[in-house]
């Protein structure tokens, strides 16, 4: 397939995944911020959302105070935030339009529908009310489901599919890692406090942001413990947003590409290397080496994979 098409599909998948993550992160944070201070409800929550979505610098430069309304507006609708949901959607649609031929009609329609919905919302006067915002975030989540489902159910299993899957999982791994990075301080092992911890609601907000709140209980069958939250997001292969699960998918899709093209390359080797490390890893060693350091190095490795893919396939 055309290198440009592959590039577009790869980024399209990343934008869609990012929009979905942002929508979930905003929803989880609203929940947390709505709690009394004694339960962890705090305006600082909005700072951490800005950090985990990589928008902190951009927000600072716009000079507005950090509060719920400003941050949500910035992450959702702000045209001046390159990573806002609206811009993700706009970029996704623009990429999709450029490669219409490589998408199935279901995928295109899901993106286009969401885009039209957004345009309709934007064409109205005034700031969207809470209800409209909530609805829009739901639309984004649903769109990522229909887009993803559309891809899974309707795309031919060829380059187009593999490149878009690889994009999705690289973005997802990046999002999970950033979330861990911002919240690592509440995830460190500690003596269990009887009657729950102040951080309890932080942990549950993290789980909600990656839609794993229920999954946690199914996996561990115990009350919430921070190191288990970290374990779930890093090392549990059955958890679809864990780093290891993302890399299992990346390796599989890159291998399919390599098989179809008849040659393995640097990106396959690198992805297998990252996956291999994760497979051998234990949470003890992660905590010993430092959770923060681990996550930082993972983010760098993940970025490196993106660069290798460009070199190998996108000419």
């Amino acid at each position, binding site marked *: *397939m*055309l*290198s*440009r*098409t*592959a590039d577009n599909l790869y980024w399209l998948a990343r934008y869609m995944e990012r929009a979905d993550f942002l929508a979930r992160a905003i929803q989880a944070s609203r929940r947390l911020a709505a709690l009394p201070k004694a339960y962890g409800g705090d305006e600082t929550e909005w700072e951490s959302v800005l950090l985990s979505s990589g928008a902190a610098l951009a927000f600072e430069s716009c000079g507005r105070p950090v509060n719920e309304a400003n941050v949500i507006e910035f992450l959702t609708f702000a045209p001046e935030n390159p990573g806002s949901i609206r811009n993700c959607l706009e970029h996704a649609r*623009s990429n999709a*339009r*450029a*490669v*219409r*031929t490589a998408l199935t*009609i279901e995928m*295109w*329609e899901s993106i*286009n*529908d969401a885009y*039209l919905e957004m345009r309709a919302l934007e064409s109205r006067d005034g700031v969207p009310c809470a209800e409209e915002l909530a609805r829009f975030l739901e639309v984004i989540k649903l769109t990522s489901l229909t887009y993803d489902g559309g891809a899974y159910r309707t795309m031919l299993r060829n*380059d187009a599919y593999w*490149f878009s899957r690889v994009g999705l999982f690289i973005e997802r791994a990046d999002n999970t890692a950033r979330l861990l990075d911002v919240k690592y301080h509440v995830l460190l092992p500690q003596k269990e406090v009887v009657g729950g911890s102040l951080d309890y609601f932080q942990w549950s907000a993290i789980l909600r942001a990656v839609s794993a709140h229920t999954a946690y209980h199914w996996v561990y069958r115990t009350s919430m413990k921070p190191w288990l939250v970290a374990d779930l997001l890093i090392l549990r292969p059955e958890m679809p947003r864990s780093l290891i699960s993302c890399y299992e998918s990346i390796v599989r899709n890159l291998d399919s*590409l390599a098989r179809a*093209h008849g040659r393995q390359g640097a990106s396959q080797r690198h992805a297998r290397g990252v996956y291999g490390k994760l497979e051998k890893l234990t949470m003890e060693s992660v905590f010993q080496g430092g959770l923060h350091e681990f996550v930082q190095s993972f983010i760098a490795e993940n970025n490196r994979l993106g660069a290798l893919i460009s070199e190998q*396939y*996108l*000419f």
Partner: protein
Amino acid sequence: MDSRLTQFDELAGADGRTRAPYRKLSQWLAETPPELLASRREQAELLFRRIGITFAVYGAQEATERLIPFDILPRILARSEWATLEKGLIQRVAALNAFLADIYGAGEILKAGVVPADLVYRNPAYCPEMAGRRVPYDIFVHIAGVDIVRTDDQGFFVLEDNARTPSGVSYMLENREVMMRLFPELFALHRVAPIENYPDELLATLRSVAPPHANGDPTIVLMTPGQYNSAFYEHSFLADKLGVELVEGRDLFVRDDVVYMRTTEGPRRVDVIYRRIDDDFLDPLCFRPDSALGVAGLMGAYHAGNVTLANAVGAGAADDKAMYTYMPDIIQFYLGEAPLLQNVPTFRCREDEALTYVLDHLEELVVKEVNGSGGYGMLVGPHATKAQIEEFRAKLKAHPQNFIAQPTLALSTCPIALASGVAPRHVDLRPFVLQGANGARVVPGGLTRVAMTEKSLVVNSSQGGGTKDTWVIDDAWVDEEAMGQA
């Protein structure tokens, strides 16, 4: 041909008795409540918007992507009418191709004095780079869009030949799909000739003109200027239906006179380019050096015979409005046949006698710029203000050779469904003619364009014109009437 007096409606006919092809539709319309039409109109709009069938309008900042208005009532032609049209179209495109091969070759028609040589050689669309070159199978125009109008139920007139990169075929195909979803009951009543095979016919046409080295299995691509082009939707739609890559200039490169595309598996050789980009932008080494849309060295590969371009470079020399006036002679010259489709009588303003007449009758004529397109640079005398007429008078006097003039035709009308009810509007028809090494093909029908505003004669989509599905149906009533009389 003073047809301004009578208005021919394709449903009502000249005498107000419903014409045979429209009888079933007319009856259906009479029995259908207006609410149903209204709800189908809404559904159609929704369908088009969801599928993303939009086009870009240049210079319209606020509406960079617009829907072309779609009318839900079909325009109907009888198979017998279509048969005449089809023969005439194939004849016309054969003549266009013979003419192009000749003017870039021996120039017989110029030597014979049938067409003035300066009109050809000084034509901005004449491409000197092609002089003395032959193209595969001598086919320059692989895809033609011939604009057809009618003024009564006798014949058809050709309004314009589009031999460069005619667009609109995606609307023809999508209109049919949408109509089949919206009106299954109407399709059950009529036997409508299918058009869905157009992409296959196009593919067969493109394959037939591939260079010999492709060994019958050519790599074909569709080349677009990119997603900001007004017809980008159509480009991606066609590439998808053809199952070929949609490439931009930057996806291609030329090495040793061979064209390659950049793929994830490395360079891949390209044999046929269905290009939807103008000559001027094809190759910055040969044409506009500032073009970022083209491929450096493409013309070298083309001349070396390593790649086929469809349509061929320089094909525009035949579809110019000044050349149009000579089409009847051109057909006669090459094919030795009388033209089956008439030209609209046209005054060549470059000729003194014609110019005088035109200047005296501006109020009743349509004046067109020879190189204009899309309904721009045009004066519709009867609808123009005094100031507009004077402005054109000045332009005509300054550069008469740049203009032609035609009588204002009473274009036929067809019913369209508006919020306020069913009303007649002016229409034209653009059928698409394919010419390959293995013959000519026309799918039955074409794109009917309709002027959505009352009395307006401008059907161009860039100026608010709409489209309709076009049906070619069996003349079953001939049998039915025969049975009735028996």
